[in-house]
């Protein structure tokens, strides 16, 4: 079977990024997955086992101190060396802030072409085909590369990671030194985002509760948190709510924020500008509660309530709690 490279991102603390499982599962559906990692130190036994369980038979490790002090360049170098060593039929990289910059540089280095923001991958007669969902889910598109190596960025959370059922985590590790030949910016400080609550991650959550300008203030936004906690949901927000400072920008759902496709999306006090709808209208079920009955959010809602979120939501939490009794 053809080799498929995956770029495994590590956090600065050395933990495997959440995108790794999905990438390895996607790679396993196309061929033999090779996990490529740039790191400033040997991988811990836990990391090796973790990648093996996720489906990596081989870890190709680019080792060098610059892996943590230089942005993206070390990963480009590790991948370029792995492309030469494994002659893969595709390279899969997370569509993350770092991942797409790495993939872009690599594509120029190896003369490949990019398929961006894939939500699926499949083989079609030996050719790798990527599926995309564009304009906020308005179109499904399939694309492929002609004449060279496909380098594919995969939308985070779009492809589920399935545990590998063979190999049992046995992994061969190939280590190569990083020389630092790819230009990159220097990292001078790292500030981790504050640890979030025990709430699920927004991109992959089965239920999302989002708040908008209609919440009126940062203090009132706690209503969104209360409903989210009652439902075990992740918290989202419209750009208006983020711009108004009600909630951190990582929660922004929409055209310029995170795209989500949960089973249930509940929009509180969100009017539903097209840019917001672009990030959530592929949700399976949409519920909207808003005072203004003319809000465009109601055009896409399966269940819409024209009403005051401060009245309806506490009653809803109560009704759900009563059911749990």
């Amino acid at each position, binding site marked *: 079977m053809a080799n498929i490279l995956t770029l495994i991102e590590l956090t600065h603390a050395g933990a495997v990024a959440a995108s790794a499982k999905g990438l390895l599962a996607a790679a396993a559906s196309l061929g033999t997955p090779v996990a490529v990692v740039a790191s400033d130190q040997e991988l811990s036994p836990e990391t090796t086992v973790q990648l093996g369980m996720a489906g990596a038979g081989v870890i190709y490790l680019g080792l060098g101190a610059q892996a943590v002090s230089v942005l993206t360049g070390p990963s480009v170098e590790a991948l370029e060396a792995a492309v030469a060593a494994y002659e893969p039929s595709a390279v899969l990289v997370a569509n993350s802030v770092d991942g797409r910059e790495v993939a*872009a540089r690599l*594509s120029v280095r190896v003369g490949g072409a990019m398929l961006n923001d894939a939500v699926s991958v499949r083989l079609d007669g030996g050719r790798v085909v990527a599926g995309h969902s564009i304009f906020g889910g308005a*179109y499904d598109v*399939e694309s492929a590369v*002609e004449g060279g190596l496909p380098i594919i960025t995969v939308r985070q959370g779009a492809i589920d990671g399935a545990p590998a059922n063979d190999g049992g985590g046995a992994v061969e590790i190939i280590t190569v030194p990083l020389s630092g030949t790819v*230009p990159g910016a220097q*990292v001078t400080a790292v500030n981790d985002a504050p640890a979030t609550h025990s709430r699920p991650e927004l991109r992959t959550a089965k239920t999302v509760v989002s708040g908008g300008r209609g919440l009126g203030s940062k203090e009132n936004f706690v209503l969104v948190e209360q409903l989210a906690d009652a439902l075990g949901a992740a918290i989202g927000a419209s750009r208006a709510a983020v711009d108004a400072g009600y909630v951190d920008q990582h929660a922004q759902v929409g055209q310029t924020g995170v795209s989500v496709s949960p089973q249930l999306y509940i929009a509180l006090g969100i009017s539903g500008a097209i840019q917001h709808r672009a990030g959530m209208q592929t949700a399976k079920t949409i519920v909207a509660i808003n005072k203004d009955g003319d809000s465009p959010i109601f055009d896409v*809602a399966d*269940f819409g309530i024209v009403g005051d979120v401060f009245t309806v939501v506490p009653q809803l939490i109560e009704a759900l709690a009563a*059911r749990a009794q």
Partner: protein
Amino acid sequence: MKIVVLIKQVPDTAEERTLVPATGWLDRDAADNVVDEINERALEVALRVKDADKSTVIVVLSLGPDEATKAIRKALSMGADSGIHVLDGGLAGSDAARTAAVLAAALRGTNADVILAGNESTDGRGGVVPAMVAEHLGLPLVGGLNAVELGGGKVSGERSGDSGSLQVTAALPAVVTVTERTAEARFPNFKGILTAKRKPVATLSLADLGVAATPAHAVVLSHSERPAREAGRKIADDGTAATQLAGYLIENRLV
């Protein structure tokens, strides 16, 4: 300091956007074409450098059809000094690799200290062209900055990542991309609109740039429009809406 700002004309995100059925390419006639907002923010970053140091020269570079001239003129009316328009029928349907190779060729002649761009366009959302340009030019990419400091022969800033933020820096020349967290763009003033007409815009063709075809390219195999969502039940709250909603969620096994 010389700053080249990459700008892209995109269909207005506030309108429905469509693909041309025959090719799967972007339908540029379906919605109003505007300068991508993220590029206007990148331009604003450059203009603030120029506000503080009048010797700064700002050039805007756009690759696109005839109509992209309007985007360039808008940038000039906001305060950029001159424009470069890469215009060639042979560029229709170019993928990111081709676009980046052509932009890099156009940039080689500019002697820029800084190449500024948005982190991703609102149409393609690939977020890869600036990094490809950086690779073609052998420059560092200082990407995804929420806040930018330019000066003293270097660029520094705060980059937001998936698990927090980083402080990053690089010596110039460099390619820099900004997020929508950076500067809110200014509106062109009357004087700017008047002077924009007299500012020079160079037009470059593929023959002028001599860019070789890239060895591989991305193609659209198929595309289909999903049926629009239909509105479902909509009720006005008469005091029972929450109970009805709870019933709906339970009935559909959503909670």
